[in-house]
């Protein structure tokens, strides 16, 4: 018997080794006490140090020095508000401070300048900085302290209150409310950008959309929109503060600096690991910094406890960073390992199945309330990144059967719409891919470490994320530089630009036109139209007559006289059709309102085309050109009289023009040739007037470009320009390559036909479209402005994919799945602990998760799954419930998941291969996905799916009420338009 027991134990030990083998976790060296906190304030240009953790001593030890050190403290903070500070000393006997500040360290002046900057700079909102102090890193937050609520001024360290006040603060983030009307429903909810939105059952919709949105949100194109919103917030924020009674009266600026690392030279290798970790995990670290900042704000208003509060917060911060950096990670997260080691897949599969089935055997019965199914239900409901991994790919041309396979669109998307893969991975891990956007974490609680470990191991299959690779073989910039410098030396003179050339003789048509210079060609189409385009974009647009002012000399004039420019004003009739209007700004300058109707998401690729037209018109209006006094050369004279060869240095305005005007031209063409726009075409305009339009714009463009390229002026004349003019004169429609024509019509199709229901769009298709759409707007090489710049060929960079990052310090997949720990941990997506008393920390984390979203976009809800292996319960804690503490809701297993677990168990029992069992598991997950689509379809179609008829729905569609939360959550990833009113 005893022998048997030993044997069992050994067996058990070997088993658990299976998923602990490989690289054992090596705890990196880290001394949290070396984290130093510095705090400075700036008021009316006066700076002073408020706190330096290096000069803090514990009171118990140095009781006698109390008065002296508090004096020191006061002296330092004197410039701020002396009466208030002195109160600290007075109250000293009442409140027994635990810490005291001593003399600041010698380097405090230097650091002060580093933290704040050398000169006081006006700034809105807070800013983040990173400096290197030799081997140390300094992370700084400069901010205007917001006062916590009045009550909290009485200063008990009541974190909840301060969180509340934080919530009320008008932070820029809160501006992007997903509920905001007219906001495109996007995963990030923060932006309305027209996006070719696939219909509900499009493959990988959520993954791709999220990444695309991120790219848009962080590209420079979004600046304007963002800024206008942010400025609002920035203006509001100080106002809302107001003078706070009881707090230091005038607004001051605080700088909070954290120094990482010790003074002495440390192990370089260790340093490097920490630096990598620091920079890749910065968003999580910043979250802790934010928490610290909030504590500092509170301390700032609570004079006598200032040092204690800050010290306490610092200790928490140190602990958090310590946890984040040194906690042992799961060494073999199943999903990631299967992805990154396809060759071990079989082995991993065997181990996983054995463990899964053994857990189901033991812990998925009535006795333990179907613990495993319940837990997996909860994980599948909230860590939603598995959904794209079972979403069927479109027709992938492949000869062999692909089970889960890598999505091809990723690379294309990354190329054309750069986004941060690390960020995407983090979002995957937290399950932040649905709509509304939520983030989830899972905590397994239990006294028995081995059971908890096994469960963690199993869950690392269901909590999925992308695999991040690092390409270290980029080649060396150094050698590249040496090579090009050689090349560059050889090339001596920059060749004459082959830009636009002039016709030798004045073009007849042109001449006629200018002789006729005072005639006003005015074809207007004015009036306000309510336009319904493609059934989706819906706005009223004022169609003003669009004027094109041409200021130019008739040929006979000498170019020197600017003032006598004849003004040729031609009102240009743009063919304003629906497509065009759909994106034109409304009169009051409001932003485009793209409201997605709730019942369908339609691709609207064409929007781009129309913008181009808009652009073209604006640029055609070239007052800038003429009103610029610096511009002594008149447009047309320089072009038409050959004597004139004023060499001008291109001003910034010129360069700007170059871009703008040239772009307008091509866009104009694109517009003209977009077959999809059903217009009263240009043919309706009398021919002579037609001719006017194009050359006018062309010539302006040409002349501008020439100003930048004086060399070209006297070069061989005729060629391109004449040809172009000629073609325009004859046809009025510039030639378009068949390609672009094809593209434009193809692009426009999806938005026009089948408005009610879109067929599914595969990611491959989307790629193609996006790809084409960019081609189409760039298909005008011969007149693209960019030809004027000297073209240099791209440096070659190898873009081979390298192996996935296995180190925890540079990616989240290997970093946020923690092993068993003796205490609760923040940040980790998954971890186990024997600790049961962590509710307070958990609540704080819940609040922080929504108040300072690590994903840099607003989070609607944070959800923590707490599974207790001692009590066999699975609970959900949500940030949403307004109750304090948050409501805990018990998870009920979904029947679909129960059936899935059961099937896998039984198949395994029937000795089906592990690989097949896993395939079946995936098939079952896919079934669940299909069911969610059906549910979404049902909710979309049914007129009034009141929340009451859950029974009806489940009966109709044939599933259990317990399946509903799961199915609804999944539906949030593929049918964001459903603000599902159920459940």
């Amino acid at each position, binding site marked *: 018997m005893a022998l048997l027991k030993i044997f069992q134990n050994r067996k058990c030990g070997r088993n658990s080794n299976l998923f602990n083998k490989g690289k054992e976790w090596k705890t990196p060296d880290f001394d949290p006490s070396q984290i130093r906190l510095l705090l400075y304030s700036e008021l009316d240009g006066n700076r002073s140090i408020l706190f330096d953790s290096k000069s803090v001593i514990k009171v118990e030890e140095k009781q006698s020095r109390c008065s002296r050190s508090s004096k020191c403290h006061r002296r330092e903070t004197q410039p701020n508000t002396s009466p208030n500070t002195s109160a600290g000393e007075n109250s000293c006997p009442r409140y027994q401070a635990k810490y005291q500040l001593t003399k600041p360290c010698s380097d405090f002046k230097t650091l002060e300048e580093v933290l704040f900057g050398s000169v006081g700079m006006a700034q809105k909102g807070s*800013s983040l900085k990173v400096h290197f102090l030799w081997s140390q890193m300094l992370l700084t937050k400069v901010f205007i302290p917001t006062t916590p609520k009045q009550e909290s001024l009485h200063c008990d360290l009541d974190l909840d209150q301060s969180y509340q006040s934080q919530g009320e603060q008008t932070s820029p983030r809160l501006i992007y409310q997903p509920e905001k009307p007219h906001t495109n429903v996007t995963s990030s909810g923060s932006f309305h*950008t027209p996006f070719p939105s696939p219909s509900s059952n499009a493959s990988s919709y959520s993954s791709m959309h999220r990444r695309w949105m991120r790219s848009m949100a*962080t590209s420079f194109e979004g600046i304007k929109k963002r800024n206008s919103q942010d400025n609002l917030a920035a203006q509001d924020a100080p106002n809302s503060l107001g003078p706070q009674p009881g707090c230091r009266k005038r607004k001051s600026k605080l700088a909070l600096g954290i120094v990482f690392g010790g003074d002495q030279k440390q192990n370089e290798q260790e340093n490097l690991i920490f630096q990598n970790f620091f920079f890749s995990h910065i968003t999580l670290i910043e979250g802790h910094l934010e928490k610290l900042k909030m504590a500092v704000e509170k301390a700032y208003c609570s004079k006598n406890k200032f040092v204690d509060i800050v010290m306490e917060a610092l200790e928490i911060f140190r602990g958090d960073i310590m946890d984040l950096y040194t906690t042992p990670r799961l060494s073999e997260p199943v999903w990631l390992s299967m992805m990154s080691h396809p060759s071990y897949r079989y082995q991993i599969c065997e181990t996983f199945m054995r463990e899964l089935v053994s857990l189901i055997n033991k812990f998925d019965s009535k006795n333990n309330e179907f613990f495993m199914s319940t837990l997996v239900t909860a994980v599948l409901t909230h860590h939603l990144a598995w959904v794209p991994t079972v979403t069927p790919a479109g027709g992938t041309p492949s000869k062999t059967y692909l089970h889960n396979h890598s999505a091809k669109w990723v690379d294309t998307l990354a190329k054309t719409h750069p986004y941060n893969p690390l960020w995407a991975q983090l979002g995957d891990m937290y399950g932040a891919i649905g709509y509304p956007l939520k983030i989830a974490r899972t905590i397994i609680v239990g006294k028995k470490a081995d059971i908890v470990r096994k469960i963690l191991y199993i869950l690392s299959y269901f909590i999925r994320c992308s695999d991040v690779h690092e390409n270290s073989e980029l080649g060396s910039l150094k050698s590249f530089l040496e090579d090009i410098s050689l090349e560059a030396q050889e090339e001596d003179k920059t060749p004459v630009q082959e830009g636009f050339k002039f016709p030798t003789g004045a073009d007849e048509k042109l001449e006629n036109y200018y002789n006729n210079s005072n005639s006003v060609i005015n074809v207007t189409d004015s009036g306000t139209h309510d336009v319904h385009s493609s059934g989706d974009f819906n706005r009223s647009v004022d169609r003003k007559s669009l004027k094109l002012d041409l200021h130019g000399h008739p040929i006979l004039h000498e170019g020197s006289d600017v003032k006598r420019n004849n003004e040729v004003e031609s009102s240009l009739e743009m063919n304003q059709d629906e497509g065009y209007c759909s994106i034109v700004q409304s009169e009051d300058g409001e932003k485009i309102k793209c409201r997605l109707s709730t019942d369908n998401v339609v691709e609207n690729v064409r929007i781009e085309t129309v913008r181009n037209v808009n652009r073209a018109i604006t640029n055609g209006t070239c007052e800038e050109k003429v009103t610029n006094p610096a511009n002594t050369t008149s447009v047309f004279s320089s072009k038409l009289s050959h004597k004139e060869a004023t060499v001008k240095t291109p001003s910034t305005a010129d360069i700007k023009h170059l871009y703008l005007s040239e772009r307008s031209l091509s866009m104009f063409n694109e517009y003209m040739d977009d077959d999809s726009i059903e217009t009263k075409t240009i043919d309706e305009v009398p021919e002579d007037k037609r001719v006017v339009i194009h050359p006018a714009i062309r010539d302006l463009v040409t002349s501008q470009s020439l100003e930048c390229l004086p060399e070209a002026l006297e070069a061989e004349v005729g060629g391109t320009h004449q040809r172009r003019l000629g073609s325009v004169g004859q046809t009025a429609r510039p030639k378009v390559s068949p390609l672009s024509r094809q593209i434009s019509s193809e692009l426009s199709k999806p938005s026009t036909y089948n408005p009610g229901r879109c067929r599914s769009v595969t990611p491959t298709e989307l790629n193609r479209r996006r790809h084409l759409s960019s081609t189409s707007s760039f298909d005008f090489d011969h007149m693209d402005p960019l030809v004027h710049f000297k073209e240099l060929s791209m440096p070659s960079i190898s873009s081979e994919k390298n192996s996935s990052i296995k180190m925890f310090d540079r990616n989240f997949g290997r970093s946020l799945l923690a092993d068993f720990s003796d205490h609760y941990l923040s940040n980790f997506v998954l971890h186990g602990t024997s600790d049961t008393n962590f509710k307070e920390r958990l609540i704080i984390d819940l609040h922080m998760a929504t108040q300072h979203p690590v994903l840099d976009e607003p989070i609607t809800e944070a959800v923590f799954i707490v599974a207790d292996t001692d009590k066999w319960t699975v609970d959900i804690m949500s940030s949403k419930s307004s109750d304090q503490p948050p409501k805990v809701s018990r998870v009920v297993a979904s029947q679909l998941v129960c059936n899935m677990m059961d099937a896998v168990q039984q198949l395994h029992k029937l000795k089906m291969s592990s690989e097949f069992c896993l395939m079946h598991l995936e098939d079952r997950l896919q079934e669940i996905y299909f069911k969610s689509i059906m549910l979404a379809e049902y909710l979309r179609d049914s007129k009034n799916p009141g929340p009451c008829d859950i029974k009806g729905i489940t009966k109709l569609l*044939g599933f259990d009420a317990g399946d509903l939360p799961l199915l609804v959550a999944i539906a949030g990833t593929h049918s964001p338009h459903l603000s599902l009113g159920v459940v």
Partner: protein
Amino acid sequence: TMNAIISLCHFCEAHGPQVIFCTQPLHPLERTISTDSDDTVTDGRKAARSSSITNEPTTPTSAKNEFCRGCSSEKTGFISRDDDAQVNYISSKQPYDREVYSMSRQACLKSLTGEVCPGKDGPIFFGNDQQGHVLSYTFHINDTQARGSCTRYSILVVMMDKIYLLNSWPFLVPHLKTVIEHITKKANVVYEREKIKLPLQPPQASRVRSKPARSLIDLTDDRNIFKILHLSFVWILKACGNRITETLLEGPPTEDSIIDMEKQEETEEGFCLIFSKKVNIDEVEEESSNNETAESPETAEEEGPAITNIRHLMKILGEDKFHVLAHHVVIGNQIVVQSSMASIVRSVFNALKSLLPKGCCRVIPYSHQYEESWKCNFLGLVPEVELPLHIMSDESFVLVEISLEDQKPTDTQTKEEENDDLLKRLVFKMASPTTLPEKAPNALYKMELALQNEDLTDTVVEHYLICLKEEWMNKVKVRFKFTKAGGNRTAEDTKKLMQVIGAKEEDTPLLKFWMQGLSLQYRQHILTASKSSR
């Protein structure tokens, strides 16, 4: 590439901190959108806007049209096209966009005057959400003619994505350093040369004379220095974007879409892989027309009355008749439809197909001769054709005759009304030598329930059928694996398996028939996988 702008700034004695050269990737599509933001200004305010561009308040140099060599870089700028990624890298003195410009300028100011870098030269990061986030690497270049014999420069990487920029620090900083070393090395050569030439000149003298600032070209004595900068910045932007990549997995395509693909391959090759035996010319024609209908039902749609969908068919047939017909369909008995109305025959098949996975549908829509059941489970025939005798006795099939009830249509009817009327007069006669099992497969009952349920719209029913078919195909897969690839199985085991997959005795005919619908790819995958794992 990255959504980032790299710029070179310097501190000009005369003009203060200046952006002198910047490189940014422009996505053609992005370019149009971004500049559109300018257009948010209305017509009325357009004049104001355009004048503000010309008199750019933040560009004192350009407004005054002052020329300063120190602040100048390249007249025309550079462009590199990355056709692969559809991105152009453009370098010029300033970013084209006003917003972006002012952001770069702010960053430049802070980098050279505001923020402090411990040790003067080196990398720092600063920024906020409004003005962008900046990685700034400050350095100095020795210049005999400058005050203090050196000029301060910095290279900035500006991004809106704080996280991405900080994530990229470990890559960007060493590479910026490489570029800077390249520049300073060249400048030092010039500096040393000039120092020798002017050994007697006291350093103060230069200050008094306040010589005009020199351009980087002079300082490095390299007329191509900006070209080099352009290429290096492009290199950094692109390499940084390529540095981190990700792999995402997506699910396997559905069996139906694999079948579609396999069918496409068949047509491309001119022959079909599955039915390639004994093909005569006649059949190839049949086959291709079959493909036509399968791929694009709309184009193959003929003039004439048609049944719209499976529900419609159910209504016309009546539930009892429908049940019998559908039962034949789901267990794979051949459905022979004889009628003079080709359009009706086709539409009946199209409707019935929704009861089966695609792989199980082999249709010969309208033939002039009988085709055997291994070739097609849906066969349309002209009325004259007699079924061969041996077929009548051997094969499992159902014969459906569709005719019209006699009634002369009135002349006044429009075509639509006529069709409508016609559909009402259809008469279905069914006859089969095959006796159906007593109980129909459970999947069929479920399908019928959904079809009968008026609360479900056609779309929902469609998805319901998809779900059901996928569910049962997964059972079929398990059974396939179990029987074909699992080795010897006892009857006991089989019974157990049926239990596991939730199938009963009456489902067996369906499972067996649907197994034929598995794609070749899947079959091969399962068979090879089971071989390799053994």
